[in-house]
């Protein structure tokens, strides 16, 4: 398999996952902002912080607000963390790798792009937003289903899986890290509504139903974090994603070095318990996990995607 083709299918998968995650998180976040009583809510800035879009947003001297934030996260073509940008990038990568993917993949990615191009900028206000975000999530689901049911289990599939799961690790750690510190740092007396925020977090990571069934109806911060980090059967949990990548990469030449950070992360997670963590420790822990993910990404790039010249 050509290194370039491997690189492109990997990025296609990452961008597709990113588009879906942004849509999912943005949707939950916007519902949360409507539900929380005035004075107990988070700020719109938190949404930007989750996707590390805050700095660029401020550089452009845009005022924080619902519409400006959502326009930036949904439709802004130059924002590398917007839905539209992610969809476009996924399409560019799929376009030149059509021959290693099932035929319908290109068609569906292209349709997703055409849809986003037409509707993203019309879907900022509250009335159209929900519909658009839900549609993005559904279309991404359909694409994932297509890949899962028709992609031959070859190296292409393994790199798709790598991109897909690595992006999930990225999103899950960011959502937890940002929301946790945003909640902690608020100067709010009334914490009666915090469980809504934690339920929202679980919802944005497709974990709320499973959480209620296995833990209970009330979303508690520590239990929620433990759940999305450690529940190995939950497809967005860190343990699930790290182990999934590990399993998938072992078929590839040169995987031994690449998977080192995975093993480190799994060891860290093995002794993790949110209840025993101070907010400061939590912050450092999440950062360490993100560093593992970053090292994994760099390792894969230098091992397979750039293919040395000798």
């Amino acid at each position, binding site marked *: *398999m050509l290194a*370039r083709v491997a690189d492109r299918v990997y990025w296609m998968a990452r961008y597709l996952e990113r588009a879906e995650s942004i849509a999912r998180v943005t949707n939950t976040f916007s519902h949360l902002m409507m539900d929380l009583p005035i004075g107990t809510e988070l700020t719109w800035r938190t949404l930007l912080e989750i996707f590390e879009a805050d700095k660029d947003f401020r550089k452009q001297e845009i005022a924080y607000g619902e519409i400006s934030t959502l326009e930036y996260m949904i439709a802004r073509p130059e924002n590398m963390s917007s839905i539209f940008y992610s969809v476009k990038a996924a399409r560019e990568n799929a376009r*030149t790798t059509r021959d290693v993917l099932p035929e319908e993949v290109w068609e569906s990615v292209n349709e997703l792009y055409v849809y986003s191009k037409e509707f993203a900028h019309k879907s900022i206000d509250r009335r159209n937003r929900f519909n658009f975000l839900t549609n993005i999530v559904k279309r991404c689901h359909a694409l994932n289903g297509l890949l899962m049911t028709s992609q031959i289990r070859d190296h292409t599939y393994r790199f798709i899986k790598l991109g897909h799961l690595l992006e999930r690790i990225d999103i899950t750690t960011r959502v937890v890290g940002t929301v946790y510190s945003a909640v902690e740092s608020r100067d709010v007396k009334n914490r009666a509504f915090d469980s809504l925020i934690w339920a929202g977090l679980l919802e944005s990571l497709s974990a709320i139903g499973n959480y209620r069934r296995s833990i209970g109806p009330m979303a508690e911060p520590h239990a929620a974090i433990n759940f999305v980090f450690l529940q190995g059967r939950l497809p967005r949990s860190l343990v699930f994603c790290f182990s999934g990548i590990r399993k998938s990469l072992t078929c590839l*030449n040169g995987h031994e070095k690449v998977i080192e950070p995975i093993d480190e992360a799994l060891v860290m997670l093995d002794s993790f318990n949110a209840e025993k963590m101070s907010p400061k420790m939590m912050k450092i822990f999440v950062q360490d996990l993100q560093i593992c993910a970053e090292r994994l990404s760099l390792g894969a790039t230098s091992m*397979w995607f750039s293919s040395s*010249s*000798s």
Partner: protein
Amino acid sequence: MHSSEYEGVVLGFGDEIINPLWKDYYSDNFFDEMIASDGMPRNASKGLYDFFNSIDEKEMQDRRTAGELAIREMGVSFTVYSADSNTDRDWPFDVIPRTIEGSEWDPVSESLKQRSRALNEFIHDVYNEQRIFSDGIIPSEIVLKSPNFKSACLGMSPPFRAWAHICGTDLVRDTDGEFYVLEDNLRVPSGVAYMLENREVTKRILPELFEHYDIRPVDDYPLQLYKMLASLSPRKNPKPTIVVLTPGIFNSAYFEHAFLAHSMGAELVEGGDLFVDDHNIVFKRTIDGAVRVDVVYRRIDDDFIDPEVFRPDSMVGVPGIMRAWRDNNVAIANAPGSGVADDKVIYSFVPEMIRYYLDEEPTLASVETYLCMNEADRIYVLNNIERLVVKPANESGGQGVLIGPHSNREEKEKCKESIAKQPRNYIAQPTLSLSTAPTYVDGKINPRHLDLRPFILHGRDIWVTPGGLTRVALKRGSLVVNSSQGGGSKDTWIVELKE
């Protein structure tokens, strides 16, 4: 218009009831591929004519819609360049196939092989002994000063003395029905994927016709291409590594590059996927490290193939690939420098080449050509421009062509100025009366002009596609068949007739 006022092909001889689809089908004095001058279908077209005469407008429309759908589903597209964006368009396809009798095609096929042998001998000679100059057959300056002559290829001797491994030769038929060569495309000829896809589409939308017709298959082209490319491999391993080198997604023929790679089971690579090491070996970058490449089927022009040797600003080429080729560590198809024979001035010397190198008489006619570099010819061209087709010697895709009878005064004046400035760059030919074939346009079947591009593969053996890509000018009276300029295409049937 009452067709009976004119001579030529008129359908509905006698008291036959005419299907409204065919009403006024009239092909002037042109040779019509389907209908003979007596108004009756030619032998190879009889079944086809009966079929399209038996259906009504609705069914015709249905078949056409089915064809368009098939093309979209199969993802057959080509890229149209425009000022602000490049768009993929569906391939324009006409549902009515074009037929040629097998016995009529075979001599043409043989003649194309003859031509390919002579052209390859010529290229080899130009880069080696240059006998054809010293023997005074072709003046050396017109070859050596051509931008397609590449001195970096001097002294090279590729396997089987084959340089132009893939050649797309454009043929037309004049009023007498005889085939003429219009030009030889020896650089990176395109269109063969569309030939294959046209057949696929036709099989889907006219399946019943294949029951009674004996039509030569075209779908082993990718296999023949693979065999030809494999025969060039410098390493004699049973499964050489073959790649298709594309300039990328923005090239108008990207669809074809991907299609051919896919159907040969070869990898589609971009310049950045390949590199050449210090021992002048070509490698591709894979997830398992570097893998040696034996044969590069390149779809990039000479000028861009190696920035070390040709244009240094090329972003799509492979630095060092010429070193590897010169050391015979990799085969490049078509060989660099092959374009030297793809020039409309050189074209006029091909009959001489056939006599000179092969000691044979050319069996395929060429179109009479006036070389503007010769004073007598130039004067003739300037005085008769309204009757001639003027072509730049080095362009492809119909770029810069002036069709005298179809151009206005201003265009003609501009063209004359260009000729006076750079006579070597222009040739002129009489306006040919291209043959026509029934084509479904504007809700009716009308005659439209067409040409034919067969593909010749030249490695250890020479192989010619049965038929080729038929391109048709969809505009009434138009002679421009290029897809980038509003042309369409037809499936081409070489038909075996039963005794």
